[in-house]
């Protein structure tokens, strides 16, 4: 059991690192795009709201695997020179951003209307009310949902490696170890430990953030 781990420590470690980088980079993309989409969805302008809604509905209802094919195989055939890493991060990030947007929107909805009106009557513009008053509070109410989304992202990252993109992530490395050692259960067991380690870390980090910053409503 342990010899599969010790003899292939390099492979498992590099796989874990690839998965971690993939998740972190996609998280940044998801947070940025998700915030923009959430801002669109609560905008006072009707067509911006519609745009935000269309964005969210498209990306959370399309399978991640399909997004990966579109962004990598599809775009490359259209002569767009996109690398497997870029396509992987963009797909996972865009896919997750739809969920981030939904979570943030519910956070925004929880900020009382009176605060927004107070901000507006003090002469702040709508975007700056959003930026200075609403979003900071919205983020703090949605720390728990963001943690949940991050865990989902760790799991979804395995799809990137198993797809055509073939990034050498934790699952891929475990399968390579399996193909060299024929020890299927052992190889997958250690990958499972790696994934549980990542999801547990995400849980702990977000719990700490929640304890520190969360606003409960």
């Amino acid at each position, binding site marked *: 059991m342990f010899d599969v781990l010790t003899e292939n420590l390099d492979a498992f470690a590099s796989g874990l690192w690839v998965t971690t980088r993939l998740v972190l980079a996609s998280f940044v993309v998801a947070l940025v795009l998700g915030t923009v989409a959430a801002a669109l969805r609560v905008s006072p302008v009707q067509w911006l709201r519609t745009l935000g809604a269309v964005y969210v509905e498209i990306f959370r209802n399309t399978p991640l695997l399909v997004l990966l094919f579109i962004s990598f195989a599809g775009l*490359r055939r259209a002569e767009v020179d996109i690398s*497997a890493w870029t396509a992987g991060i963009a797909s996972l990030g865009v896919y997750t951003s739809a969920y981030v947007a939904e979570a943030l929107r519910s956070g925004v909805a929880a900020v009382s209307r009176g605060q927004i009106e107070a901000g507006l009557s003090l002469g702040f513009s709508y975007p700056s009310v959003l930026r200075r008053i609403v979003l900071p509070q919205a983020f703090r109410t949605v720390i728990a949902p963001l943690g949940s989304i991050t865990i989902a992202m760790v799991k979804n990252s395995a799809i990137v490696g198993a797809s055509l993109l*073939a990034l050498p992530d934790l699952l891929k490395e475990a399968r*390579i170890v399996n193909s060299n050692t024929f020890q*299927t259960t052992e190889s997958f067991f250690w990958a499972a430990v790696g994934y549980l380690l990542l999801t547990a870390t995400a849980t702990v980090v977000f719990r700490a953030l929640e304890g520190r910053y969360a606003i409960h409503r």
Partner: protein
Amino acid sequence: MSRRRWVPAAAIAMVVALAGAGCGGEDEPSGQQTKQSEQAQKFEAGTTMARIADKGEIRIGVKYDVPPFGFKNPRNDQIEGFDIDFGKAVAQKLGVRPVFVEAISDNRIPFITDGTVDLVLSTMTINKERAQEIGFTDPYFIARGRILTEKGSDIRGVEDLAGKKVCTALGSTYEETLKKEAPRADLRLVDTYSECLELIQNGAVDAVSTDDVILTGMIIQDDSLALVPGDELTVEPYGGGFKKGDTKFAEFLNGVLEEYKSDGRWQRAYDKWLGQYTKEKQQPPDATLEQALQGEVT
């Protein structure tokens, strides 16, 4: 359209295959059911052959995406290729119906050890590591490891692969070979060779390395691709795989292979699936399993 060349002969072969499918049931000789019990008696009781003859079908693990060795035509579900023809010959000798099952590189050895298939004919190279898990027939084909690139690529040999993206299948011998011969190459390990073809066509990898026959299949589909001349990375004797230690089945399979080679069927299959595209000639292999395991095949 622009990147592909259509081989008229292949198109004709396909039309013939389609027409054949239209007539239906060409794989099942008439009166097969009644013959089954007689066939079962031909083989010593308790052997794999008797068991298969009794069942009336032999399950053979093949590739579905490696023209011209094992290929499933998705439009009409016909499975065809060099491996398929040999599999049919084995089934014919047993007097049973061949049932072809897709076996990707990743799962073909588990398929044998857990009994999902009776036999694997899936462009599988004979080597010592695998021989510890499964039994092999004598080599039924000798493939050579080569490199495929876009025409006009600056890759001239294995030493040029350093820093280049190279695609091969997860669980294939090339995973090891490339790590040894081209340690600085950036390997992309995928599940099926059709993914390697997609990746080199869309430019995501610079080269594909695997057996020349598989690479030939890619050139048939896209003539902007070419083999890097000369450099033979490896010699790959293909063997049929079955459950380890089944010596009676091994003898039987090797007997079928001898007959297949000596009565001209091997040569006809070679010309049909390879020779007409490569314009090359090749004799049936005469190496034994032992030589293949010792790496003495040239």
